């Protein structure tokens, strides 16, 4: 397991307390899981994705990740409509372990303006992990 200072926590994404990240790309936001989350889960063997068009509320469960030992829910870091899902993860879930920031899970069109700004910065998230 990685020490806190070994975690890859890029500054160009924002984080949720549930260990998802969000990155604004124009009108939409890509969503994935943090390096901390993938490290805690271990080998991810299955990813269950939502349907394109699904309407999510902030904090709503939108899919599951299965690692060797556990089944974990993934929660929407902000409200919006799912406009795309990363289907490459269906056949290659291990990509989330290999590079959790390049391999996004869903793409959302946000429906609540301020929610993105309420997410945690890198420093805030690091402070949360450090307890």
């Amino acid at each position, binding site marked *: *397991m*990685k020490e806190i200072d070994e975690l890859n926590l890029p500054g160009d994404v924002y984080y949720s307390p549930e260990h998802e990240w969000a990155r604004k790309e124009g009108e939409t936001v890509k969503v994935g899981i943090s390096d901390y989350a993938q*490290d805690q889960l*271990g*080998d991810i*063997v*299955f990813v*269950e994705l939502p349907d394109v068009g699904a309407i999510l509320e902030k904090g709503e469960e939108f899919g*599951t990740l*299965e690692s*060797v*030992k*556990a*089944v974990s829910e993934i929660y929407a870091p902000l409200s919006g409509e799912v406009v795309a899902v990363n289907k490459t993860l269906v*056949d290659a879930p*291990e990509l989330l*372990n290999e590079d959790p920031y390049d391999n996004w899970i869903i793409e959302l069109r946000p429906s609540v303006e301020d929610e993105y700004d309420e997410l945690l910065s890198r420093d805030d998230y690091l402070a949360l992990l450090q307890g």
Partner: protein
Amino acid sequence: MTTEKTAVRKTVLFDWHLANHATMAEFGGYQMPLWYPSGAKHEHRTVLTGVGLFDTSHMGVLTVAGEAAWSLLQHCFSRDLRTCIGIKPGPLTPGRCVYGLFLRENGTVLDDAIISQLGPERYLVVVNSGMGPIVREHLLLHANGPVDVADRSGRIGKIDVQGPAAALVLEGLLGDPDKVLSDMIYFSCKGDVEEGPTAVLLRDKTPILLSRTGYTGEFGFEIYLPAAATVSVWEQLLAAGRNREIAACGLASRDSLRTGAVLPLSHQDIGDWLFQNTPWSFVLPWDETGQRFSKSFIGAEGLSAARDKSYTYPFAGYDPRKIPVTDKTVVLDRHEVAIGTVLTCTTDMGIDRVGEQIVSIVSPESAGRPADFLARGLSCGFVKTNRPCVAGEQVRLTDGKRSVPVEIRRDIRPDRTARRSMREMRNQEMRGETR
């Protein structure tokens, strides 16, 4: 009242695990590795194709010795020591090992164990982590003659060397590999946990007890050795395997390998319910009729008087999807009737379905493995039901949120190597079959 916590124990390999960045967790009162940075999937597959090392120094180890040792074990253990070895069953003898259970009077499982006979009146009893004192107390309670039951837990190191290349790696450490290995059949042992004329010596003169048993369903060995020598031997094994596929393995791959091999996890797949109608009923001392027990033993009356029937079955899914095992997790039959609970649900990462057939990454192509086979893994585990099921029956596991269709199976992971001949496994290298 004090609130002092019991200290979590460490095996002698604890510092090695930390130095090699293992993800650690508490298990059975010990801090143990779950997996190392290469991941549980890699570790699981390495045991199928190469060799994996498991630190099992947390297991409980007892020695039972003396005039009354045999009668004590015969009374407390679920195997009939007169008829537990071989196809035409013969007695447990020095150099042989047997798997079985210690049951409570009511027929529930206290623990499972492997007993190795070391000498005429001397046995090694290996139980699960933290169970050494409990099983020792259980044995002493039933002793009826001169017998010494000593709990060696923590003082004996233990390393499991598992996988098709296990003998080839072990050869590099043994002082006289041909003498030790050549005639070692499945569930046999050589050496002792104490120095003496019967000891098997490594090249560095470390005395070991070597048994051809294991955790995983694959070909391999368990090495018992003085605790102080454990780290050195562990590193020597890794060095001996450096030109092969070798991996240190944690508890996650132990669980997935065991489940895929239809081996129970103690206190999870067998535990505080009657031991009956299980895939492991061969550990009960049935007589030739298969209707009665061939001896009286602790738990026999409880089992015979049992009225509440339950049934344990292995299952395999159709993809890697699992179900969390909680109080809400149930088994539904095809009429949506709840018929039981889930005991274990994990993923065997070395198998997948080709059509309806389950194939392993090590299955020969002649057994149906496509040349370009890439196993995604299959969920598998054990259910406990309130009615009999048949192999092939489709059931559904659900926790109320998700639903996973699975199939009741007799077996899960094909082409396991545990029982292959020593000659075949030692000759693999010449044929280039291990990496």
